[in-house]
Structures are given as C-alpha cells and as structure tokens.
C-alpha cells in the first residue's frame, strides 16, 4: 500500500484525488481537513513525516492559456532512472481533478527521515476566500514559508502568529507572484519609477 492510499483510507471523504506523476506521491485534499491530515502525517508511525521541506503556492489563473501551449505532445519515451518501470501506468497522466479547479493551490512537500519517503500534499484554495489553516503548531518551518506565501500570493494562513510580509516591504501593494501582477510594475520607496 503506498502513501496516498494510506491517506485516502484515513480521509475517504476529503481526498479529492491522488496521483504518482513521475514517481512523486501526491494527494489533493480539501482544505477544511488540512490540519487534521497534517497531524496524522506527522504523528502516524507508518507515515512519520517529521520534515516540512517546502511550502509554496501555484496560481492557476492562466493555466493552459499560453498562446504557445502545444497541442498535447506525447510523453517522451525512455523512463528516467529514478522512476519505477511502468508498475503504475496511471502515473503517466497528470490532470487537474474536476472538482478542484480553483485558482490557487497551496502545495506542501513532506519528507520522513526514518522512512526516507516523500509526499506532496495539495490544497485547492478559492480566489474569493484565500484562507488555509496554518501548520505552525506542527512544524516550526511553516512559520517563514507561510509568511512568504502570504507575501507573494496573498493567501491568509489562519492561526499564524505573525503573518506579515517577509521578502517585500510593508508599503508594497499587491502580491507579485500572482499571474495578474505585471512583472515590471515597480513601487519604489525612493527614486523614480523606471
């Protein structure tokens, strides 16, 4: 039984989809049950994810709307060395699940030191109420990562003790990594806008 199945068993109504695209175990979860699921991930001895390696977000506003999007090229054939050969043919297909095509997705990468395995957890977040539960009570590393996501995407983490900008300055208006923020729109503190 792999990791995503294990988690699906524990949260049968809340796991929206799972996949193993390119060998990365991925679980897409409803945001309401994030905190409970995270606690299980950390405390269940079979999972034992003691590292929150990375926490980020993706803005799907213009996904597949690029003028240069290819008309679905097939996957190049030879498998990389780190992939298990074709044990799971479904692992070759990657689609966003039907019920979870929200604008934002908060993405967690977990790692377990004792079991030496990784898991990616994705939480869809609506544009109207960009709120997720904070994981600072479980992993200290979530503190700065969540501040960064707030800074760059404007996702509010409920329960975060100190949610303020980290990379940019307080005077900055907007969230620059959102796809609708122009790349060279400057808001200088001093000097001309060039």
């Amino acid at each position: 039984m792999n990791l995503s199945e294990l988690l699906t068993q524990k949260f049968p109504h809340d796991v929206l989809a799972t996949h193993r695209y390119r060998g990365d175990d991925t679980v897409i979860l409803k945001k309401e049950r994030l905190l409970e699921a995270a606690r299980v991930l950390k405390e269940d001895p079979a999972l034992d994810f003691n590292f929150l390696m990375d926490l980020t977000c993706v803005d799907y506003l213009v996904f597949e709307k690029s003028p240069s999007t290819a008309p679905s090229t097939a996957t190049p054939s030879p498998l990389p060395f780190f992939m298990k050969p074709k044990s799971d043919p479904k692992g070759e297909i990657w689609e966003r699940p039907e019920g979870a095509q929200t604008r934002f997705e908060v993405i967690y990468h977990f790692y377990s030191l004792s079991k030496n395995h990784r898991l990616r957890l994705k939480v869809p977040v609506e544009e109207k109420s960009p709120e997720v539960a904070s994981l600072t009570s479980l992993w200290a590393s979530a503190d700065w990562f969540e501040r960064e996501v707030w800074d760059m995407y404007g996702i509010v983490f409920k329960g975060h003790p100190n949610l303020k900008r980290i990379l940019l300055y307080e005077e900055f208006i907007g969230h620059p990594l959102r796809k609708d923020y122009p790349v060279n729109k400057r808001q200088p503190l001093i000097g001309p806008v060039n």
Partner: protein
Amino acid sequence: MTKQQVWLLVIGTCLVFVIWLLEFNMGKIQEEVTKTGTTETRSMLLNIGPSHPAMHGIVRIVAELDGETIVGADVEIGYLHRAFEKMCETGPYNNAIPYTDRLNYVSPLINNVGYCMAVEKLLGIEVTERCKYIRVIMSEISRISDHLTCIGASAMELGAFTVFLYMIKAREYLWELIEKVTGARLTISYTRVGGVKGDLPQQFKEDTAAAFKQTREVLKECDQLLTRNRIFVDRMKDVGVISKEDAISYGVTGPFLRSTGIDYDVRKAQPYLVYDRIDFDIPVGENGDNLDRYMVRMEEMEQSMRIVEKALERLPGGSILVDDQGHEMPAAFMVDEAKMGRTAGFKERIVRMDPTLEGSSGSHHPAVNAPEKKVVLPAKEDTYGNIEGLMDHFKLVMVGHGIRPPKGEAYFPVEGANGELGFYVVSDGSDRPYRVRVRPPCFPIMAALSKILVGDMMADMVPTFGSVNMIGGELDR
C-alpha cells in the same frame, strides 16, 4: 603667590567640585533604590545590518540585549529579493539557467544541475552516463569552493585574517579549473536541459590533480591554524547550539543538520546522478554547535575531493579525439568558416573540442548530451553546416517552439552546499515554465537563527551567523 600655585589652586578647587557633584548624584541614586527596593533594568535593542561588516550579505538582525546576553532576536530578510521565480516564468526553459546561477552564487553549478534535473524529470528523459559523471564532478568542485568561502569568511570575522587569504587562494585554484571547463569563473550556466554545454577539456584530469594538491596543502595549513587554536575553539565550542528536534522542526538540512548528529544527505538518502556508485562518507557532528559545523565542512571538502577523484577514474567513453594527422580545427573556426559558406568536407574532419567560450563539436556532442532532438540543441557545426541542424536549432530557440514538457509537475531535490536544494517545476505544456519554485536551503536555517541566538552572548552572534553561511541570492531569491 607664583603662577604655578595659582594654577594648582584652581585645579584643586575644580576637583573638589567634581567629587562633590558625583557623590551628590550617587546619593540620589542610592536614595531611589532604598525607596523603591529595586533597580529598574531595561533590555536594550541593538540593530545590526543591513550593511554590516560581519554580515556577509544583506540581512538585518534586531537583537534585544540584557547586558551582553541576547534575550531576543528579530531577523529581517528580503533585501536581495530579485524575483527569481517571476523571472523564470517569462522565458523558455533554458533561459532560466542563468537565473539559477545567481541563487547560490558561491556554488552555482549545483543550482544549475538541480534545475535541469527537475525539468528532465518533468520531460521524462535521462542524460548520458558521461554527462552524469561530469555533473557530479563539477558539483563537487563547486561544493568545495562554497565551503572554502564559508569557513574563510567566518574565520576572518573571528580575527583569523590569514585563513581567509589562504582559503580564497585555494578557491582561486578551483575557479581556474572551473573556468577551463565552462569559460566563466563564477556565474557559469554550464548545464543545459538534457546535457551540459560542452565536454571536459583536455588535460582536465591532470589539472584537477594539481589543483587538488594545492587545495589540500591550503586545507592542511588552515587546519593547523584553526582546529586546535585556543582562541578559535573557545569562541566556537558550545556556541550557537541547536538541538536535533529543533533542527528537524525548522526543516534545517545540510551541514547544519549533520552537525547535530543526523546523517541526512540527499546524495545518500535518495541518490541522484551517480552518487550511489561512488563510495564516500558523510561526516556528522555531535553537539550541533559552531565547532561541529566547522569540522563537518572541513571533512566534507575532503570527501568531495575523494568523489571527484573517483568519478574521474570511472569517467566513461567519449574521450577527446584529436587527429594526429593534423585534421583538427577549433570549433569556433569551423563555425566562422560555415558562416562564409565554406562547408565542403566538414563532416570528414575532426573538430577539436573546446568546451570553453568557443562552442562544442559534433563528435563529442552525443557523449555529453541526451539524444532527445526535441530538447537538446544540436552541435554547433551541425547548426551552421547543414539544414537539418539549422532547423533543429531554430525549432528549439524560437518563441512558441522550444522545449515543451508535457503538462505536469515535478519536484527534484539535490544536495546543495547548505542543504537540500529542491526545484519544483510546473508545466502547462507550453514552451515556458508555468511555475518554478526553489526550496532554498538557508531559508529554514535563517528562520531558526532567532532561536539559536537567544541565550548566547552578543559577540557569539558573529561566529553563529558565519556558520549559517547565509547566501543572499538563495535566501531572498
């Protein structure tokens, strides 16, 4: 009365007045104490940075001091935010490689490798054996130069200026080696998606042996200067201690984590490239203090040299073919000829491999680059010498064509000099990355810094901060 006596009198009067003034005030303070029962102590706020000699990088720490002890520290970062992630989304896949150079600018090649491996994972392709070995060799040389800079700079801040000069000297030997391979000293952009820019130059093995001999001499000298130096050890030992639990909770990796005794290293835990085929050790510490981090880094340099030497021994095929009949020409010359249309007989001639600024050539191209035509740029004399090569080239560099990974996402971790360096790439099937996220290794360490500093003395901030090896480009991106 003489003049001198008058002066003495004046000075004497002044002294008496000053002493009276002091006593009067002391009495007042005494009165205050007896009235309230206690003296009021207030902690002092001390601002360090953003531009400060002991902060090699731009960071601001507001420390709250009680006497000389730090009781609280507020770390502020972001002064070098250059929008790496946003810039990556604006161009094709290969255009992001120069930006990855400038993440951890002390060991740029590890970033290059990490990014390219993530895109290759997304594409589902694999590079050639020789390319894997070259990537390992160059990554490890970069790692040595990173550790040299880190130890040199933090020793300098403790007053050991000689060590800094020696270590930069050693770094210069390694950079000359890197320059021979890539054509640049620091920001090298050596890898491509599906391969590397060019093969290793001739004499590389001998050059490496010579550079490592000099580097080992420098390391031995520095070891003698520092490791049993009473002043150095006293300032490093039991300073900046982090416990195992805290390190894991903060997501700290790399030498910082290994100094606490946890032997987590991506090269061993989840081997990539050819690390599983090369025998090397992972040094670990015990106490998680500054001295252990110094020792771990010193040993890691030795292990990296070991890896490079072993990899060079096993480097497979694709040796540098130079025709002894004189049928050779530099690739750049061939390119110039081809531009003038003098291409007759090109395919019969053997081009000398110059993997520096002058380009690479056909016979060596397959040895270091994956055979995927949809990903890897053709050899330069194919581009200029025949129409298929030219079309192939343009299909890869034109806007709206280029590398097109299938829709999906991939995360690829490599062991950077500061810890786990992960690249998370999302593709929507177009020719430019939809999202590139880098997990910066020193970001979690800086988050943990405010906890590590508390309880230490003011002066301990310098060695602790030095052992973090904060790299602005990687921290703020």
